[in-house]
């Protein structure tokens, strides 16, 4: 259920970033969600859709890009995508690895209507 709080944070970021475009409709909000963040995409969209009702974001769509968990081996330097279970290098099997992707939780783009579309 923590997706609801995360959706609220996303909405606040979008409202803050679009305050200079108050006459334009917000169409799409793009977020990146890392595989290891324990965020359920369906729940996040559900929370977002519920919370935007009656706000200036109503009618906008939340688009989620899932970022796979990726590690970099500190012994041989190679990078591998992991399934979230074993933090172990694909190449040399070392467990001395650094997580490089998978913990993202970012709003990265907002699509708003063009000035010409404003009615």
């Amino acid at each position, binding site marked *: *259920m*923590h997706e609801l*709080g*995360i959706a609220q*944070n*996303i909405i*606040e*970021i979008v409202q803050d*970033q*679009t305050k200079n*475009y108050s006459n*334009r409709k917000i*169409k799409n909000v793009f*977020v990146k969600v890392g595989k*290891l*963040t*324990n965020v359920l995409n369906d729940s996040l969209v559900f929370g977002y859709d519920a919370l935007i009702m009656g706000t200036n974001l109503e009618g906008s769509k939340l688009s989620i890009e899932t970022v796979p968990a990726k590690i970099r081996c500190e012994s041989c330097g190679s990078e591998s995508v992991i399934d*979230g*279970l*074993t*933090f*172990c290098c694909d190449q040399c099997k070392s*467990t*001395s690895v650094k*997580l490089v992707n998978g913990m993202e*939780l*970012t*709003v*990265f*783009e*907002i*699509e*708003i*209507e*063009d*000035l010409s579309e404003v009615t």
Partner: protein
Amino acid sequence: MSVITVERKVLAKNDVIANENRSAFKRNKNFVINLLSSPGSGKTSLVEKTIEVCKNKLKIAVIEGDVQTDLDAQRIDKLGVPVAQIVTNGGCHLEANLVKDALNSLNTNDVDFLVIENVGNLVCPAGYDLGEDFKVVVLSVTEGDDKPLKYPAMFRNASVLVINKIDLLPYLKCSIDELKKNALSINPSLKIFETSCTTGKGVDSWCSWIQSNLQSK
């Protein structure tokens, strides 16, 4: 269609407050742990046992986080230790602003060791920084040796694992070696303690670890 590029961390607001908490802890020289686990693994029992062993050596304060009731705060209060209860009313984890509010009702100026006992949940609390020095995850042997694999984010984000209720091992199928192997496959740098809050076994070495961290503060 126009595109605005943003690149803003969704939990940035939490991180800002967590850093404020961290600065306050540093100012007061508080060593702070964020104690995490599923419900019923013995977090509060471990806090009680820690207080019992360390009370005369260091000043302890506790923040209790629960979905409902102040039962845990009552248990800590009985031991004569300052405690603040956060009731989340359904919220599944603590956030930095809740801890900041709790700090207003708890004088931590002269506190050596502050325990923030999170809501019992192996999922959501892993993602929220509260400003602590370390995340400590408690796993009781009754929960089974496969739990680190099932909740990898929690065990990856924690620095310390306390395996609790080890007095019950003779009655269970849980293998402590398998449990440790699973935990270390997720996080090879995990520091591991084995404790029983019923017999007191292992609590001394856990308390020594706390004291060694206080000295480096």
